[in-house]
């Protein structure tokens, strides 16, 4: 029997399973207060998904406000936080929109589909702003590389990201693959998408214009993902985890491809007043958000929704998270034209509702009223929590446990140490992963993994383009969440600058443990505060992002992992700076200060140590370093650049040499411990490669701006005979300490992931 509004009024004492749907008692009481009666089962379904942590940001909202309050002055921001994705002006009338989101919990339960639908969801977010999606990236984190469960999760996630993105025709231009014990049982699958549009084509999710029609189009609604939002994303895994398998959504990238083409054509033809993608909370979210953002009212005939499974109940239809669906607001006189485009692309579409100014969202099921609620209370006025937080008691002990106590290698052991780092899962080549992704499709990929940032040409005429990097060292964030978040921003900012682009905007995916644990909540509060302060200081606003809580097993939370994505603009991608150095004789310079900083480093991690204070972050220095890298690219002073981060200077040199296939002679500056020089992970540093003719101009620029520039080497392809090899053999010579062939480095660098996952 259908639980109608009338029935709900007549049966106020009917017991409802609000707790099973993830609602607390006081939240349930608030719904009763709003409605002046008990909710119908359909209303309860809607409120429960929309008030879940995933949809309502109820624990994070009070902290996230800082991104708005501390927003730097910028003219670049066209659409800010709060829409599906922020929009940034990149010049010449072009706008880009980008955002990163998590699909962590589903990807643990069902790696392939969880990761695939993560890509699909973020692509629809970008599409719903009116933009053509251009590229995707995927920051991924897994448990120990050699753990049995990682062998289950990683190949599935990689195949899912590839299977969906490749079939959708979007190049995958970068991301991260990181291993750490804390992600065992809690893999992080974050997905980023970037899209472009002309300024005049920006669309927003609002239902404007009384009498306009609400069209649901795309895939049919099925039983997949029902309750996914509230059950999967808002509860910590326990022993019953796998039993929730059916809740994970199933993706159809072919349908998504058709949906993209049909949507871009109806937008281009001017047939759409407002548009919203269907993701978490499905129809509940789309109808309530559209109504709340527009005239304030909407009526929906729910029985008109096209179904894959005709036995679905109205509650299930409202909660279904079936993929590849969109909702558009269309004027009645334009509906036939809209339907024509859908037919052209074999996309099913149906009018399910109408915009009104009643201030209510009303939903009928075969003539009976099953929902009658103010849409704002569903979409935007959910509960807000000031969760208690406090600095963990163990934080002081953690910070006091400096890596200085670890035995350091002797100079005879430097080579072994380097080989160990180069082959370690976190620093090894990620080709086994990225070779499963199409990086060429659409023909505008200028840089992709393993370059410092992914770069896409936006305008073929002018060469204007964008660069994006994502970074986060969760170990730094554990040692000090405030500084750790700033270091994540600093690194991705530096990566964008290293390729020659000017940073413009920030997105983030804040992955943490349970917000109900005051210590986790402190990590979150500190990370947000650190990130907001740093964005203000670097002058780039946060345009949107995502929070993923409850990434923990039992009482053990993941490393706090605020993944930060920075987007930059480059006026002509032809002048991008790659990481591979050029011909013999070019000079290798190290920019920035190297300190004895090993806390949270890869070297310490390989020794099972995590303690001490993370590297010092100096945002003014980062900004000046960035300006130098961009100016050097613009004025043709450098041929290559590479940021120094995980693994330190030696790792950066190895990555550049392997990318170019040419050896080099390096010498280590006097007055600094060579171990520190080679392996420390101090921030604010980069390696640049300079033709001899530009040396003076470049070093004068650095001196004028107060950035230390040390000449540390020269590209040299003829070192083979010096070390008893033939003339073809390429060699890296690290001063008087050791020499190693590129063949040997490539072998250990490339072998690790295939050996584990092939």
């Amino acid at each position, binding site marked *: 029997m259908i639980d109608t509004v009338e029935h709900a009024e007549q049966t106020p004492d009917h017991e409802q399973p609000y707790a099973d749907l993830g609602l607390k008692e006081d939240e349930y009481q608030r719904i009763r207060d709003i409605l002046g009666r008990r909710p119908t089962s359909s209303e309860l379904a809607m409120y429960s998904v929309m008030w879940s942590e995933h949809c309502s940001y109820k624990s994070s909202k009070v902290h996230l406000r800082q991104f708005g309050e501390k927003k730097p002055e910028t003219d670049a921001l066209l659409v800010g936080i709060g829409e599906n994705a922020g929009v940034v002006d990149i010049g010449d009338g072009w706008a880009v929109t980008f955002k990163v989101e998590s699909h962590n919990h589903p990807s643990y339960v069902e790696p392939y589909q969880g990761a695939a639908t993560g890509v699909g969801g973020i692509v629809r977010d970008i599409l719903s702003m009116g933009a053509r999606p251009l590229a995707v990236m995927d920051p991924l984190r897994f448990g120990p590389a050699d753990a049995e469960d990682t062998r289950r999760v990683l190949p599935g996630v990689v195949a899912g990201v590839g299977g969906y993105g490749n079939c959708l025709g979007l190049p995958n231009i970068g991301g991260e693959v990181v291993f750490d014990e804390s992600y065992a049982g809690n893999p992080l699958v974050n997905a980023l998408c970037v899209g472009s549009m002309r300024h005049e084509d920006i669309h927003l999710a609002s239902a404007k214009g009384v009498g306009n029609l609400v069209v649901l189009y795309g895939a049919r609604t099925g039983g997949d993902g029902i309750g996914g939002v509230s059950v999967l994303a808002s509860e910590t895994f326990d022993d019953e985890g796998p039993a929730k398998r059916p809740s994970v959504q199933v993706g159809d990238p072919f349908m998504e491809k058709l949906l993209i083409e049909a949507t871009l054509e109806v937008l281009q033809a001017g047939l759409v007043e407002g548009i919203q993608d269907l993701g978490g909370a499905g129809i509940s979210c789309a109808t309530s958000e559209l109504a709340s953002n527009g005239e304030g009212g909407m009526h929906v005939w729910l029985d008109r929704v096209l179904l894959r499974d005709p036995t679905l109940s109205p509650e299930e239809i409202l909660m279904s998270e079936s993929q590849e669906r969109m909702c558009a607001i269309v004027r009645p006189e334009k509906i036939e034209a809209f339907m024509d485009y859908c037919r052209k692309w074999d996309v099913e579409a149906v009018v399910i509702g109408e915009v009104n100014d009643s201030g209510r969202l009303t939903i009928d099921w075969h003539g009976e009223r099953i929902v009658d609620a103010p849409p704002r209370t569903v979409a935007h006025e959910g509960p807000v929590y000031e969760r208690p937080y406090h600095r963990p008691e163990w934080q002081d002990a953690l910070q006091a446990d400096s890596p200085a106590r670890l035995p350091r290698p002797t100079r005879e052991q430097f080579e072994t140490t380097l080989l160990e780092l180069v082959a370690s899962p976190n620093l090894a080549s990620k080709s086994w992963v990225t070779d499963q992704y199409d990086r*060429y499709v659409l023909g505008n990929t*200028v840089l992709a993994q393993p370059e410092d940032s992914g770069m896409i040409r936006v305008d073929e005429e002018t060469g204007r383009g964008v660069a994006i990097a994502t970074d986060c060292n969760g170990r730094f964030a554990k040692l000090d969440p405030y500084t750790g978040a700033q270091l994540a921003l600093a690194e991705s900012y530096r990566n964008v600058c290293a390729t020659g682009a000017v940073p413009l905007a920030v997105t983030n995916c804040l992955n943490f443990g349970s917000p109900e644990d005051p210590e986790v909540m402190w990590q979150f509060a500190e990370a947000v505060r650190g990130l907001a302060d740093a964005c203000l200081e670097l002058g780039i606003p946060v345009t949107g992002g995502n929070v993923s809580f409850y990434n923990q097993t039992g009482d053990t939370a993941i490393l706090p992992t605020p993944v930060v994505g920075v987007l930059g603009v480059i006026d002509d991608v032809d002048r991008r700076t790659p990481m591979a150095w050029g011909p013999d004789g070019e000079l290798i310079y190290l920019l920035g200060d190297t300190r004895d900083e090993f806390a949270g480093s890869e070297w310490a991690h390989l020794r099972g140590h995590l303690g001490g204070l993370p590297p010092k972050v100096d945002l003014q220095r980062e900004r000046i370093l960035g300006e130098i890298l961009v100016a050097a690219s613009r004025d043709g002073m450098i041929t290559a650049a590479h940021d120094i981060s995980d693994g330190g200077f030696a790792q950066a040199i190895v990555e550049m040499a392997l990318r170019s296939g040419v050896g080099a002679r390096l010498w280590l500056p006097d007055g600094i411990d060579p171990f520190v020089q080679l392996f420390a992970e101090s921030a604010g540093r980069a390696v640049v490669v300079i033709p001899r003719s530009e040396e003076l101009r470049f070093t004068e620029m650095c001196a004028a701006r107060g950035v230390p520039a040390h000449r540390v080497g020269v590209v040299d392809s003829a070192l083979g005979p010096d070390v008893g090899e033939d003339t073809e053999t390429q060699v890296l010579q690290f001063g008087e300490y050791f020499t190693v062939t590129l063949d040997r480095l490539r072998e250990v660098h490339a072998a690790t992931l295939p050996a584990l996952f092939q």
Partner: protein
Amino acid sequence: MTARIGIVTFPGSLDDADAARAVRIAGGEPIALWHGDDDLRGVDAVVLPGGFSYGDYLRCGAIARFAPVMTSVVERAHSGMPVLGICNGFQILCESHLLPGALTRNDHLHFICRDQRLRIENNSSDWTRNFDAHSEIVIPLKNGEGGYVADEATLDQLEGDGRVIARYLDVNPNGSRREIAGICNERGNVVGLMPHPEHAVEELTGPSTDGLGFFTSVLSSLLEGAAR
């Protein structure tokens, strides 16, 4: 006269814009063709681009061969119009019986995207005539089902007739029989190629510009045909 090169868009085609760009850079005029329309709009040659036509859900290329546009393409191919099928387009040509054999799942079971070295084995087809004999080129390869298979007799015949267009060098990336990366029909006007020449037409975005040779070749063929 600028040659008009048609590029078919099926639902799920992905590299159609790339193929159009390659035609333009080579000096031809790209013409968009639609799967549901059997009108070839007076084109002089046709490219079937890469992608996942109809989602590749039944078998790669198996549904696309029944598209109205393919009736016209097959008919014109039989009368000598140059047709190039890239990746999914190669699969469609095999399903349409314009080329022998089939493409199967990569032997290592993973999708693979890599810069692939090839040797041009036949430089007399309509799509390879501008290459030097035995040229070695590098163009992107990206497929999940790119393993070329045919029975031994067919393979022997392809080899004997010089209809193997290109062969993989260094590694066989997908388990193709006899390292075959591309083949042509007897007349040399229909070519199927698993790697992607359209992604190697600009220094900026490709591993090389070696792919341009396929598109300039067909323009040369058409020019010669017009002169005859």
